[in-house]
């Protein structure tokens, strides 16, 4: 188990959180092309190293948060409320 600091609840076990993808993705306009929609829907950075991710505190406060995390070392660098 790893501890994730939720900005609302404090330190909680990582099993309470659910991964929600890249935090930097921007939803395309409604009249976007199929290729643009596919990029948004399926393609992702999947960064090795420092990564900005969306997580849902599903078994906690139920709120979406952003976690800056190193995917190679698992170190959590920062967490904050979802910024959008």
């Amino acid at each position, binding site marked *: *188990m*790893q501890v994730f600091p939720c900005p609302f609840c404090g330190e909680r076990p*990582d*099993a309470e959180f659910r*991964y929600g993808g890249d935090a930097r993705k921007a939803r395309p306009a409604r009249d976007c092309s*199929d*290729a643009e*929609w*596919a*990029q948004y*829907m*399926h*393609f*992702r*950075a*999947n*960064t*090795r*190293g420092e*990564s900005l*991710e969306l997580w849902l505190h599903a078994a906690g406060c139920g709120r979406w948060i952003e976690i800056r995390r190193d*995917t*190679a*070392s*698992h170190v959590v660098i920062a967490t904050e409320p979802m910024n959008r």
Partner: protein
Amino acid sequence: MSATPPRKSHYSAWSLLREGLRGQRGWTPAWTDRDPDPAYDVIVIGGGGHGLATAYYLARTHGIRRVAVLEKGWIGGGNTGRNTTIIRSNYFNPQSAALYDLSVRLYEGLSRELNYNIMFSQRAIMEIAHTDADLESMARAANAMRISGIDIELVDRREALAMAPLMDASPDCRWPVRGALVQRRGGTARHDAVAWGYARAADTLGVHIIQGCEVQGFEIEAGRAVGVRTNRGTIRAGRIGMAVAGNSSVLAELGGFRLPLQSYTLQAMVSEPLEPCLHTVVMSTSNGAYVSQSDKGELVIGGNLDRNPSYAQRGSFAVTQSVLSTLVEMFPSFATLKLMRQWGGTVDASPDNSPLIGPTPLPGLFLNCGWGTGGFKAIPAGGTVFAHLLATGNHHPLSAAFDLSRFTTGALIDESHAGVQH
């Protein structure tokens, strides 16, 4: 520059006997670790099973001899050396069944073809149904697979328990046995031997295997990849293929594009060795745990992916614990065993749990990845279709459906409901 490889000894019962009598002094190296030439016809990035098989089929099937396999570590040291060696072709969709069954058929002849004993043991794999709902969804899956020509059988509780008698047979246990989906041609092979066998056969055909050679960037001219920059210099190539599993997104970033992949840790573990006690591969559809017994006697155990995206190549204790607690519920006598080793590999999970094969947005660079948790079983087929793609520039008939374009057209090949991932 590389010298001509020494003539390889043919492996046989006779050569074993002869060398036994001569004090094992006559063996020659199975393959040669090369320095890179300045240019090749084809470069394959990644010296795992898929990369080595691709290089072998490029040389053998397509007659392309100026081929290099670039491996940043040592061959077979990534997922090829970390998986649980399961081979099967019981996939739901016809495109998947065709691809994975080609792989099983090639595995059936591989020891002879490579003159290297890969120890393919078709001991049957069985997926256990714990509930009536499991049985019904298995019946649907079995019918779909039989239409695709896969040898799959739905067996009842009695036969399932006869195949693996150490399973808890009581009706009120945590994971009761209601029946099983059985593929008798499925089984296990020696994973290192698959890498080494392909390496030896490819080397014999003139392929250069270059270890300790990490790709750090692409040489791009007029919008086309014409070579790779490595820690051992720039190497040019007519076509470049990447078969780097969990690190595919890292290479894609160097090429300036993204992939529909997320890298996760998949872990595995082995028990202390014991007398033969488990003669098939047993998988639980409900909880992901699975087990087989290696020829050394160790129980080889695996389960579901770790939950957090990762490149760490080590598994979390939470998943180890859940896999092992499930296993000892299914096989109570295994609770007394000691665990010898536990490890993790980085797998490349795709949105529909099907591989990505085809050209990339960077012309000259081609892709074979996204096999996720099940790449080992697909090595011979992955090598066959990827070699075809790299030799001709066009898809093999069996790989066209797995092109990246399916995420734009929506023609996904969804294998996520298959339950068992390995």
